[in-house]
């Protein structure tokens, strides 16, 4: 099996893929069902090939709002036993249950899906001198790296990732997503190009409540990965997308950089543009680019990134992958294709195509779409 081969690999590895991405947020925080997002992503069936699909949904566990919800995938029961032993040692488990699934003709050979609602054990927290988030990141890294056949698909509060091998609409049926309601949905349809799809390789990727669905291929993966490893992240999924999730976690959660500027780390302005900025702004962008140069994401990408309260869309600074946004009433849509948005929302108020490296942010608390002026334009080389 591919996974086994990969696991023995000593060095970096990554899987290429091209895909469809879709995200929508209700800016008032009202929760909605799977109907629209699933219809939208299925509209872009052409962009996937049935070897991977997935969803991240925010606001699905209102009863366990303040506990970490772990979605874990097990390839075998032995892995489950080991993980549960590990979780018992480190967390108070409020609830442990199987994620309900539907038998399906098209979803073949699914692994075991389980979810846990967890609170870090206070004494262990104290031992490790970590806050809850830091503690959870460390534990997730440990499970993914050390326990064979077990993958933590998501680890945020009041959210969850559902993903696997299949077309997204079939996976939605398999995971019975019509039973969930959330105020942000991000979806992904995958077209892996050089490997058979495998379950843990599907998108969205997640750490804490950061989820990323990605269309593209990062040529900077080797640089990004080695930098993140220096900061304690372990890249265990063998796919380039996970570095985007970790990059956001590092920049926004750990280093307290606003999302708008974090996006400028991933897709920075050209030096020529930085040189032309007024001095204060120039210093800021120079500092960002110097210090976080290894987090610059190079190569084609468009991503939708979500965490609680925010839905973000971003492309690389040459915009080598498509991304459009639409707004209707209180809903912001971000999609690979305009057709997917129009399919579910025929009376859109506004449709926009962000330019190279421009970030789209749908932010809950302010109930409006924030845009920061784009600094990144194509420039002519001397």
């Amino acid at each position, binding site marked *: 099996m591919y996974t086994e081969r990969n696991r023995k690999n000593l060095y970096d590895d990554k899987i290429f893929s091209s895909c469809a991405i879709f995200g929508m947020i209700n800016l008032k925080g009202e929760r909605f069902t799977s109907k629209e997002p699933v219809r939208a992503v299925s509209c872009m069936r052409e962009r996937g090939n049935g070897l991977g699909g997935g969803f991240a949904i925010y606001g699905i566990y209102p009863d366990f709002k303040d506990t970490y919800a772990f979605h874990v995938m097990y390839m075998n029961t032995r892995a489950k036993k080991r993980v549960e032993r590990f979780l018992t040692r480190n967390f108070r488990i409020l609830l442990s249950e199987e994620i309900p699934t539907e038998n399906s003709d098209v979803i073949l050979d699914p692994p075991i899906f389980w979810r846990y609602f967890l609170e870090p054990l206070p004494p262990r927290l104290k031992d490790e001198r970590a806050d809850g988030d830091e503690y959870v990141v460390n534990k997730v890294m440990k499970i993914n790296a050390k326990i064979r056949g077990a993958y933590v698909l998501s680890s945020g509060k009041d959210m969850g990732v559902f993903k696997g091998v299949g077309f997204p609409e079939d996976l939605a049926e398999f995971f019975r997503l019509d039973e969930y309601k959330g105020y942000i949905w991000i979806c992904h349809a995958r077209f892996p190009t050089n490997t058979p799809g495998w379950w843990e390789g599907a998108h969205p990727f997640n750490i804490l409540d950061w989820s990323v669905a990605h269309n593209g291929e990062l040529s900077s993966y080797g640089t990004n990965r080695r930098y993140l490893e220096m900061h304690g992240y372990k890249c265990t999924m063998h796919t380039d997308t996970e570095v985007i999730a970790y990059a956001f976690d590092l920049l926004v959660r750990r*280093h307290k950089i606003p999302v708008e500027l974090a996006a400028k780390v991933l897709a920075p302005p050209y030096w020529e543009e930085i040189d032309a900025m007024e001095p204060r702004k120039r210093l800021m962008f120079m500092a960002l680019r110097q210090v976080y140069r290894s987090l610059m994401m*190079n190569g084609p990408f468009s991503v939708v990134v979500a965490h609680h309260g925010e839905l973000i869309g971003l492309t690389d600074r040459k915009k080598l992958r498509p991304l459009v946004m639409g707004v209707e009433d209180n809903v912001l849509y971000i999609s690979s294709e305009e057709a997917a948005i129009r399919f579910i929302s025929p009376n859109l108020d506004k449709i926009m195509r962000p330019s190279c490296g421009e970030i789209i942010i749908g932010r809950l608390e302010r109930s409006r779409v924030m845009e920061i002026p784009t600094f990144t334009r194509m420039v002519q080389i001397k």
Partner: protein
Amino acid sequence: MRSHLLPEYIVERDYTKCTRCKVCIKQCTYGVHYYNAVKDTIESKSERCVNCLRCVVFCPKEAITIKRNLNNYRENYYWTQETITSIKRQAETGSAILTGMGCDKPYPVYWDKLLLNACQVTNPPIDPIREPIEIRTYLGRKPTRIELEINSGDISLKTDLAPNLCVEAPILFAAMSYGALNLNVHEALVRAAIECGTYFNCGEGGLHSNLRKYGNHIIVQVASGRFGVDLEYLNAGAAIEIKIGQGAKPGIGGHLPGEKVSEDIAMVRMIPAGTDALSPAPHHDIYSIEDLRQLIYALKEATEYMKPVSVKIAAVHNSAAIASGIARAGADIIVIDGFRGSTGAAPRVIRDNVGIPIELALASVDQRLREEGIRDEVSIIASGGIRSSADVVKAIALGADAVYIGTAALVAMGCTLCQRCYTGKCPWGIATSNPEIAKRLNSADAYRRVVNFMRAWSIEIKEMLGAMGIDSIESLRGNREQLRGVGLTERELRILGVKIAGE
């Protein structure tokens, strides 16, 4: 004592072409060619020829051919021509054999066993003619994170940035001292550095007053001889480099013989004219890492923390641990100089047997600093035997921030690697301080050649980056995923941190 040595090269002259114009006589600084008035012909003393090709290039009639002497000792795989000749020479002179330039022995060249990636289908290559590809690099210490102050929508930077050197291409001119080279060469290099947006390292021989006006493109070096070092010198450059070692001669000091120490060189080096300029093997105030720390901070104090301080070491067996110590001692840049690095003069036995390849040293230093979480506290400059833009790209993918080039820049000016720099008779006017020979090197012409070749390398680097789908050099730095090895053992691959081709 009658010399038993055989001429290495034989000069052949086509007398049907030769017009006896005597250009060859004038050009040869080793006195190979001479005019025989009796026969009205030009003849050659082949035993003096070093194959520098000066006469061949300048002969207007293409009448001269230099050939390897076919009169060789009996074939012997073990006792090579060079070993036999060396012993014979030492038997006649009783001294260590000197040489110039870098190690020329057939040790493995890892650059040539590493191949680069390119995009196909899933990822579009970028065409550097149509789209911007950035190769600007900042060298120096970086803070580990940025702290911002956010007040009601206004964001300001709280973190102070350390002084950094900005290079428009990740290539700098390596330390080559005034004394080893003449002022024409220095001037050509520093002007080329300005034109190319990079830096020129003046080496350990001080900085000539004529060049001080170019100071913001000069790295000044402090070596064990401390030649020309005073407060004004330290503040004259954009950065300061402490030279601990040199790839061509790790653990060995320097010796500029008194006959080369002209009035001018003596003045710049701050020593009496005609005396030997001796650089001790160690710095006599650095016997351990804590002493290095003191020197680093003494230099920083002297320049009010306005300039990055770099430390240059030769690539030796435990470079990784040494580099870690240097980073912790407060250096902003670490230069690692591989065993292929060149020199103006070194005992051949040292040049050819001491030190390790830069590729392996670089890979292990980069990995070690990452494991210790201090990689971004210093920049790494790889040095010693960078021959092409491909070597530059591979060095950066292995983990370097930038490279130093020395030999390549000299070759661009005219050097043919005849390895006789230590004689001071460089027929190309480069490694000589004899004013009559030095004037052969036209500073403006040499400048143009260096600028052209740097431009060519920049274009090639952008082409390679574009093919990999990378539009900025920082995404190549340490990106070993873009490299694959061929013909390497499992262990070599592991040290280099690259996969084998096909994997």
